Each structure stands twice: as structure tokens, then as C-alpha cells.
């Protein structure tokens, strides 16, 4: 699972940073776009937050745009925020930076407990400011959008824009101030995706019983790239469903892990 995720992350970066821009540059536009919005043939996929933002800035319903946000929403409702854990290039970059920090033994200045509250505050501030200013502020604060759009621009024009400054600030902040500060505390894209949850959404469940015995090895907590505690109660809406904890779970009985992916809360398999 861990390996599969690494491969998907790599494929996502290759696709949006290199394959799509190079194909488009050579006139093949069957697949095109960035992580704000992209198209695979007739299927259009748009970041739901960007869709809402455009609704607020234009005060009109663009039907194509509204339909194109459905696929990410359905994905989030079914599988949770797998976009963040498996596809988002900012998450991949942050994971790399975090691994480098661990290896170099960098200590962050602050160590707050991961919380979704500041993220909702950022999201609310954006959604209030967007109709007031008429500017697409969510676009300017979407790390995956900026990364993919600037990569495409680099392939096309050989230059990049100042938008990339935000990515630099994120990485510096996560290295020096707060571990995984952007994803855990601030990202409006992930914050909005996290709202699309219901009881049937895939989740990581810690459910030890007589058969699935937890040995208390804490391998899962060590494996979490966000610094969350998979055995604790408040895993959502922060967890990306990346699966690293489930993969790392060291079951006492072979093949009977107390940590598992599940659809309905609290119900035995």
C-alpha cells in the first residue's frame, strides 16, 4: 500500500508537471489542464473550492463548472481526502521536506496539536473576501493549483511566476515553524474537501478486539506523515486516508490488524 501510494504520487507529479504540458505543447490536447481544473477528453474535473469561488465571484451558475466539481466530491464522499494523500503535489513536497527535516534532526519552533479549526477560519475568510473583492483568492492560495500551473508555465514559457513564492513560504514554514503546518492547519483546498464526509466515507478505524489484538507498538503513529495518532479519537477531518498507518500496523496475530480501513463507523466487519 505504501509503495502503491508512492507510485501514484510520482505518477501524479509526472502527469501534471511534465506529461500534460509537454503533450499540450506538441499539440496533443486530449488531456490538458492543471490541478485547478483539468480535462481528460470530455470529462472535466475542477477543484470544488474553485467551483464555489467562481460561483461567488461571478454570482452566476456555469453549468459546465458545476458538473465538473462532482467527480472530486463523489471521490471525497466515498474515499475521504485521498486527493491530499495520493495526488496533491504539495503534500508530496511537504512529505519530502518533513522526511529531510527528520533526517537532519530539525526541531520546529512550535509544536501545536494538529487541528482543523484554523483551516476552517482560512476557508471562511477566503469565502467572505472572494465576493467582496471579486478576486479568485482561493486560486491564489491553492498550493496544488499553483504548483501545477507554474510547472506548465515553465514548460511553455521557460519562466515561472511570483505565485511560487507561496510554495516557498509553505516549505520554509513547515521546516522551521510548525511540522506539516500547511496541510494540517491552513490549506483551504484540503479544508473544503474535508467537508464532504458522511458516515459511509472510508475511514481508518482502530478497533482492537479479542481477535485483532493491539500490541501497543505505536508503529502506526510513527508511520503517519501528518503526525496524527491513528489510535486516538480525533483522526478526522485531518486524516488523508493515505494508508501508511494501516500498512505499518504491526499485528500481534498474523493478518489480524487492529487498525483497518472501514466504511461505517464502529461496526465490526
Amino acid at each position: 500500500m505504501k509503495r502503491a501510494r508512492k507510485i501514484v504520487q510520482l505518477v501524479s507529479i509526472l502527469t501534471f508537471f511534465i506529461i500534460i504540458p509537454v503533450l499540450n505543447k506538441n499539440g496533443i490536447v486530449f488531456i490538458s489542464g492543471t490541478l485547478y481544473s483539468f480535462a481528460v477528453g470530455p470529462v472535466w474535473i475542477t477543484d470544488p473550492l474553485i467551483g464555489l469561488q467562481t460561483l461567488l465571484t461571478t454570482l452566476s451558475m456555469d453549468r459546465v463548472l458545476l458538473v465538473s466539481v462532482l467527480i472530486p466530491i463523489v471521490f471525497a464522499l466515498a474515499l475521504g481526502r485521498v486527493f491530499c494523500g495520493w495526488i496533491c503535489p504539495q503534500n508530496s513536497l511537504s512529505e519530502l521536506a518533513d522526511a529531510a527535516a527528520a533526517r537532519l534532526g530539525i526541531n520546529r519552533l512550535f509544536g501545536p496539536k494538529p487541528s482543523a479549526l484554523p483551516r476552517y477560519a482560512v476557508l471562511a475568510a477566503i469565502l467572505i473576501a472572494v465576493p467582496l473583492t471579486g478576486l479568485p483568492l482561493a486560486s491564489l492560495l491553492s498550493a496544488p493549483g499553483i504548483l501545477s500551473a507554474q510547472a506548465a508555465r515553465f514548460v511553455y514559457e521557460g519562466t515561472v511566476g511570483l505565485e511560487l513564492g507561496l510554495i516557498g513560504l509553505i516549505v520554509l514554514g513547515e521546516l522551521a515553524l510548525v511540522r506539516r503546518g500547511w496541510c494540517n492547519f491552513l490549506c483551504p483546498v484540503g479544508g473544503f474537501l474535508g467537508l464532504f464526509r458522511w458516515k459511509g466515507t472510508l475511514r481508518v478505524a482502530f478497533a482492537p478486539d479479542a481477535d485483532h489484538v493491539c500490541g501497543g507498538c505505536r508503529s502506526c503513529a510513527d508511520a503517519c506523515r501528518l503526525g496524527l495518532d491513528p489510535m486516538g479519537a480525533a483522526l478526522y477531518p485531518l486524516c488523508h486516508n493515505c494508508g501508511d498507518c494501516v500498512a505499518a500496523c504491526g499485528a500481534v496475530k498474523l493478518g489480524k490488524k487492529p487498525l483497518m480501513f472501514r466504511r461505517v463507523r464502529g461496526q465490526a466487519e
Partner: protein
Amino acid sequence: MFIRSTWAVMNRQPLRPPGALPEREFLAACIRCGKCAQACPYRSIRMAGLLDGVALMGTPVIRARETPCFLCMKCPPVCPSGALKRTVRRKEDVRMGEALIDKKTCLAWEGTLCRSCYDDCPLQNEAIIMDAELRPVVDEKKCVGCGICENVCPTEPAAVTVRPKGGV
């Protein structure tokens, strides 16, 4: 002086791809995704940078003197947000801007034989016509503002320039 010229650059309305909404609405609707630039086979569509103004950053602009729009009409249908009207399919319906000829610097108006803009205009003999004395004249009802005339004008700076209109 520097501040004033920078301010002027920042407040200058840019030339938008075909099908664009009026500038204010365009700035609100454009999500800065860059799909129109990816669809442009001529690399005419560039992403605006800080020098174009903070509010414009990441939006698509056409710098006609470098690369004009060849009206292939591939960008309007790919816009995900409707900032470019997807219904604009015919080049005749485009109203990106309007060509203005500076009669003081135009070679033909100054008496030299030149018909570069007339020859390369995609709406041949409609948007730019030659008057009885073989001087180019723009028909503002027909001109779509693609900027090809500005691109091919042999004088420096160009005697014919496109004034962005903002709208369709």
C-alpha cells in the same frame, strides 16, 4: 517617472484571448488555471506576471507585438469557468480589441507604399481596407482585435496597435 510609468503599465488593460468576458467580470471568473494557454497552438497566450499588476497575475494575456492571436478558436471551448465564453466559435464574432492606426507614423499614411497590415489581416479586405489613396483604414465594426496587424507592422514602435476592448 519610474513609478508613473510602472503605474501606467499596471493599469493598462491587457489584450485577452478571444471570447473573454468584459475585463472586470473576466478577472472575477478566471480561475488562473492556464488551460487556455495549454490549448493555444501558437503560444500566443501568456500568463500575466507581477508587472502586469497583482490582480492580473496568472491570467491569460496576449502580447500582440510578440505573438498575436491567430483566431484558431481553440481556447474558448476549453475554459472551465466560462471566463472565456465557450459559445464564441467563429472568428468573426470575436471582439478582443480594435486596431488603431497612428497616421503620423504609418508608412502608407506618410506616403511610402506599405500594405503589411492589409495583407496579413485575417478578415481580408474587411477589417482593414485600403482607401482610394492606398492607405489602410480600420473598419471598427469588423475588426476583431487579433493583433496580427500590430505584429507585422514594419515601423518601430508599431504604427498600428490593438486597443483591448474587454468583451467577447
